[in-house]
C-alpha cells in the first residue's frame, strides 16, 4: 500500500474503499468491520489494528467522506468510554493478543466498555482505592465496590483498577485489569441522582475471577497504566468551536427574548454578566482548539471544565429566579435510565439540579483548581503525609 501523505490521498483511498464496499448495500456491522480491516477506522492507530499510523488531525477528513457517502457510524456516544479511555490504554499496555481480541469489536461498536475506577472511599484521591485483587494461580479473585460507572448496565467489558498489595504505599500496590462484566459475582445497580434519574451505576464485585491474561501492564504498575487512561480522558475536554449562545446561555437568552413578562430589570445586569462569561468561555475554548491545532497543547482543558461548571450553575440558578412561580415546579421525579444526558433539555429545575454535577463528575472543581495552581502556576503542593505510608496504615 502506498503511503498516504495528504488529505487528498486519503480521500482517494476512502473512495476506493467505498467503491468496493457500498455502505447502503451492506449490513452495518459488516461494513464497519471491513472499514476497520482496511485501516480506515482510527487512522492514527497502527496498521493491523484499524489504522495506518497517520496524524490524528486527518480523522475529521475521513469521517466527512464516510458520512457524505451515507456510511454507518460506530455509535461513538455509546462506546465513548471504550474509544476514549479503554482503547488507548490497551494500545499502550496490551499484549498483541489483547489488542487483537479487544480493539476490533470495541471500535465497531459490538462491545461496550465501562470504567471501574472510582470508589465510595476514593473519589478525588483515586490512588486510595480499596477494591482488592488476590492472586489464585492463573486467576485473580476480586472483591470491592465501584461507583459512578456510566454504561455499566450495558457494558461487556470494563477497565478496572484494583489493589493487589496493601503493604506498600498507595500508588505502588495497584494493578490494572480488563474485567468481563458478564462474569459471576459482578452486580450492577443503578445509582439514582438528585434529578430523580440514574445515569450512573454502582458495581459490586464479589469473588469475581479474572484470568491473569486480562491484566494490563505489570502487577503493581496499575497507577501508571491508569494515568494513561486518565490523560486520554482529559484530552477530550476543553477545546471546541461552538456557535455563540450555545448551551444554557442560549436557553436563558431565548427565554428572555421570547417572554417579555419574565424580564426583571434588576436581574438584567446579571444576565449580561453571564452572557459575557459564556462568550468569554466560548472564545477561550476556540483559542484552545486553535492552540492544539497549532501544536501548542496547554493546560486549559482543566480551566475550561471548571469555567463550564461554574457558568452552568450560575445560569441555571438565574433561570429559576427569572421564572418565579414556574421555577417552583419540576417535570418528573420518577426513577429513569436516560439514554443520553441532556444538559439543556427537560425543565429549568432539571437543569439547575443536573448542573450541580458538573463541578463534581470527572474531577471536582476543587481538584481542577489544584491542578491549575500546581501544574500551571507552579505553586507548591500540599504537604503530603500519604505518599510513603503503606496503604493499609493510611487514615481513611
Amino acid at each position, binding site marked *: 500500500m502506498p503511503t498516504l501523505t495528504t488529505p487528498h490521498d486519503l480521500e482517494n483511498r476512502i473512495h476506493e474503499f467505498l467503491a468496493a464496499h457500498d455502505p447502503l448495500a451492506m449490513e452495518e456491522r459488516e461494513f464497519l468491520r471491513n472499514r476497520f480491516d482496511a485501516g480506515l477506522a482510527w487512522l492514527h492507530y497502527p496498521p493491523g489494528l484499524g489504522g495506518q499510523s497517520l496524524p490524528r488531525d486527518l480523522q475529521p477528513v475521513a469521517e466527512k467522506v464516510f458520512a457524505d457517502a451515507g456510511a454507518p457510524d460506530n455509535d461513538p456516544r455509546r462506546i465513548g468510554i471504550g474509544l476514549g479511555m479503554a482503547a488507548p490504554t490497551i494500545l499502550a499496555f496490551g499484549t498483541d493478543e489483547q489488542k487483537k481480541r479487544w480493539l476490533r469489536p470495541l471500535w465497531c461498536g459490538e462491545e461496550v466498555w465501562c470504567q471501574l475506577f*472510582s470508589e*465510595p472511599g476514593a*473519589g*478525588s*484521591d483515586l490512588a*486510595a482505592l480499596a477494591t482488592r485483587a488476590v492472586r489464585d494461580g492463573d486467576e485473580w479473585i476480586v472483591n470491592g465496590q465501584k*461507583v*459512578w460507572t456510566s454504561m455499566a448496565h450495558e457494558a461487556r467489558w470494563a477497565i478496572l483498577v484494583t489493589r493487589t498489595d496493601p503493604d506498600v504505599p498507595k500508588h505502588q500496590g495497584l494493578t490494572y485489569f480488563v474485567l468481563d462484566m458478564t462474569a459471576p459475582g459482578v452486580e450492577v445497580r443503578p*445509582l*439514582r*441522582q*438528585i434529578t*430523580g434519574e440514574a445515569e450512573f451505576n454502582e458495581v459490586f464485585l464479589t469473588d469475581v475471577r479474572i484470568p491473569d491474561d486480562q491484566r494490563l501492564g505489570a502487577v503493581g504498575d496499575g497507577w501508571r497504566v491508569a494515568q494513561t487512561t486518565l490523560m486520554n480522558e482529559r484530552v477530550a475536554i476543553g477545546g471546541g468551536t461552538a456557535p455563540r449562545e450555545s448551551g444554557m446561555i442560549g436557553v436563558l437568552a431565548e427565554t428572555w427574548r421570547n417572554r417579555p413578562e419574565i424580564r*426583571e*430589570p*434588576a*436581574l438584567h445586569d446579571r444576565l449580561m454578566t453571564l452572557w459575557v462569561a459564556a462568550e468569554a468561555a466560548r472564545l477561550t475554548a476556540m483559542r484552545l482548539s486553535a492552540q492544539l491545532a497549532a501544536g501548542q497543547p496547554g493546560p486549559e482543558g482543566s480551566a475550561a471544565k471548571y469555567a463550564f461548571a461554574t457558568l452552568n*450553575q450560575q445560569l441555571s*440558578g438565574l433561570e*429559576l*429566579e427569572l421564572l*418565579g*412561580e414556574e*421555577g*417552583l*415546579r*419540576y*417535570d*418528573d*421525579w420518577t426513577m429513569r435510565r436516560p439514554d443520553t444526558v441532556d444538559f439543556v433539555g427537560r425543565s429549568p*429545575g432539571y437543569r*439547575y*439540579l443536573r448542573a*450541580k*454535577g458538573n*463541578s*463534581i*463528575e470527572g474531577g*471536582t*472543581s*476543587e481538584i481542577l*483548581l489544584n491542578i491549575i495552581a500546581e501544574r500551571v502556576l507552579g505553586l507548591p503542593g*500540599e504537604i*503530603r*503525609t*500519604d*505518599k510513603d*505510608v503503606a496503604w493499609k496504615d*493510611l*487514615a*481513611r
Partner: protein
Amino acid sequence: MSDELLYSETEEELRAAVADLLAARAPWAAVLARTESSEPYDADLWKALGAGIGAAGLLVPEELGGSGASLREAAVVAEELGKAVAPVPFLGNLTATALLMALPDTDDRLRLAAGGEQTIAVAVPFSTLPGNGRRNTVSVTPWPPRDDVREARLTGRVTSVADALPADVLIVPADGSLYAVRAADVRRTPVTSLDMTRVLCDLELEDSPGELLAIGYSALDEALTVAAAVLASEQLGLAERCLSLTVEYVKTRHQFGRAIGSYQGLKHRLAQLWVQIAQARAVARHAVSAKGEERAIAVAVAQAHCSVVAVQAAEECVQMHGGIGFTWEHPAHLYLKRAKSASLAFGTAARHRGRLAELVGLPVS
C-alpha cells in the same frame, strides 16, 4: 432593642420541644421516603406538632385556645422545621391564622385552627410578593360583595399553592375580597414540585361555595409579610443544618491522607458561610421583632439576605459532599430543593431588594 436579636429562654424551650419531636418523628430518611408516597405531607407529625406542641395556634390568643405567642416563637419553630425540611403545613397555616386574626368575626375559625381541628391555607401562588399587585384569577358572584351578604360562589384557578393539600379550609382572594372555602369544595391537583418536601397544588374552583371574610386585600398583604418574615427563619434553620452536616462530613472524609476539612480552600468557604449565617440569624430575628414601619424594611432585608444564604449553604453542602452529595440517597438534595424553592417563595431576593429600595428612598433612576 438589641436584646430582641437574641433568643429568650421560653423560645429556647420551645425550640427544644420541636427539635425533639422532629428528631424522633422526622429523620431525613423518612422524609425522603415520604416524597415518593401518595401522602407528601405527614399528617401524624403535623398533629403532634400543631395540636400537641401548639404550633397550629401559636399566634392565636389564649382565650381562643391558642398560645398567644408572637412571631418570634413562630420563627423558632420555623428554624427547626427548616433544619428537618419537615413536611408539615406549618407556614401555610401560620399565614392563614395571621390573616384571620386581622379580620373581624373569625373567633370560631381561629378556635378550630388553634385546636388543630382545622388546618387552613391561603390560596395564593407561593411565589407571591407581599404587597405586589396580585393577578386576579378567581371571580365571584354576587358581585360587588356586600358586608351583609356573606355567601358567595367562586370560580377560577389558583396555581402553585403551598400547604393547601393537607388544608381543610382555604382563604381565597377573589375579585378584591377574601373568602373562606372548604377545601373539599375545591379540586386540588398536586404539582410535581421542585421542593419535594413542600408539595404545591393547583386549585380549581367551579361555582364553589364560599363565605365572605373581608372586603379588600390589605390584611392579606400584612399576612404575606408575616409569612415572608417567618420563612427567613426557616431559611436560617436550613442553612444552619446544611453547614453542620457539611462540617461533620469534611471532618471525617479523608482524601490524600487528610480530612478534607483541613484544606484551606474548603475551610475558607465554610468560614464565609458561617459569617453569612451569623448575619442571617441577626436579620431573621430582627424581621420577626420589628414593628410598625420598620417591619417592612426588616422583612425585605431578611428575605433578601436569608434566601441567598440558604441557597448558598445548600449548594455548598452538595458540592463539599462530592459524589455522595449528588445522589438521591443523601439528604443534601432535599435541602437544595427546599432552599431554591424558598428563594422564589414570597418573591425573589431581587424583588425584595427592589421593594427595599422604595422603602429606604433609593430609587432605580
